[in-house]
């Protein structure tokens, strides 16, 4: 947890902010088997990603294990330069992290 698990970029153009984010996460589906021991690797994936400016939620996403490892998320919303944007995630094992970025 000490190391930041996320990278985020937000850029405004013509009143529309494009957000691109990368999260470092194993995203285990719970279906894969360990090739050496033959045991199933327990599911470990992000369930919820929320993006806010101030108190307004601009996007919330629900994920399953079907999203690729180290998920990439991108979306657009109407906003302006200089706004502070907070993105946070939480997974099925209770881990979570968040990051803040200024819209540029």
């Amino acid at each position: 947890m000490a190391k930041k698990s996320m990278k985020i970029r937000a850029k405004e153009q013509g009143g529309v902010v494009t957000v691109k984010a990368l999260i470092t996460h194993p995203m285990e589906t719970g279906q894969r088997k360990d090739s050496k021991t033959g045991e199933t690797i327990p599911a470990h994936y992000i369930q919820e990603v929320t993006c806010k400016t101030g108190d307004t939620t601009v996007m919330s996403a629900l994920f399953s294990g079907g999203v690729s490892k180290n998920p990439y998320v991108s979306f657009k919303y109407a906003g302006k330069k200089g706004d502070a944007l907070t993105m946070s995630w939480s997974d099925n094992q209770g881990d979570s992290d968040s990051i803040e970025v200024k819209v540029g």
Partner: protein
Amino acid sequence: MNIKRRVFLKGSMATGTLGVAAAAGLLSPTAVLAAWPEAAFKAKKVDEVLTNLMGSSEMSDSAEIKIKAPDIAENGTVVPISVTTTMSGIESIAIVVANNPSPLVASFNPGAGAEGFVSTRIKMGKTSDVIAVVKADGKLHSARKEVKVTIGGCGG
């Protein structure tokens, strides 16, 4: 001495933020479990997914939804998908892969001022239709695109 003091300050600051993060982590799982529709994510059929997630499985094809995905994905573990829609009143955008063990991959709920655009990368077990379901003004609209997968990305 000074350097040590600096390090100490840094250290205590770091633990401070960690503490806050841990507190948030302790609080959020219950909230997540309440919001995360387990039935929809555990469903094995597209109809079940939609009934559990959006309350109905009746959807109409729409030309206003565009899926950008490769025709052939060599590696099923990373398939880039973008969904764009020009509809108004969007309540949610779901990405469903018909032939995956759990078809519902992700569900996006755009908030205030969000545009009809989402992009992410998904796993695909085998060649399948990728279905983008958009709920707008209480109705379901969909678009689909077949993606051929050479090497599957769901376990095995």
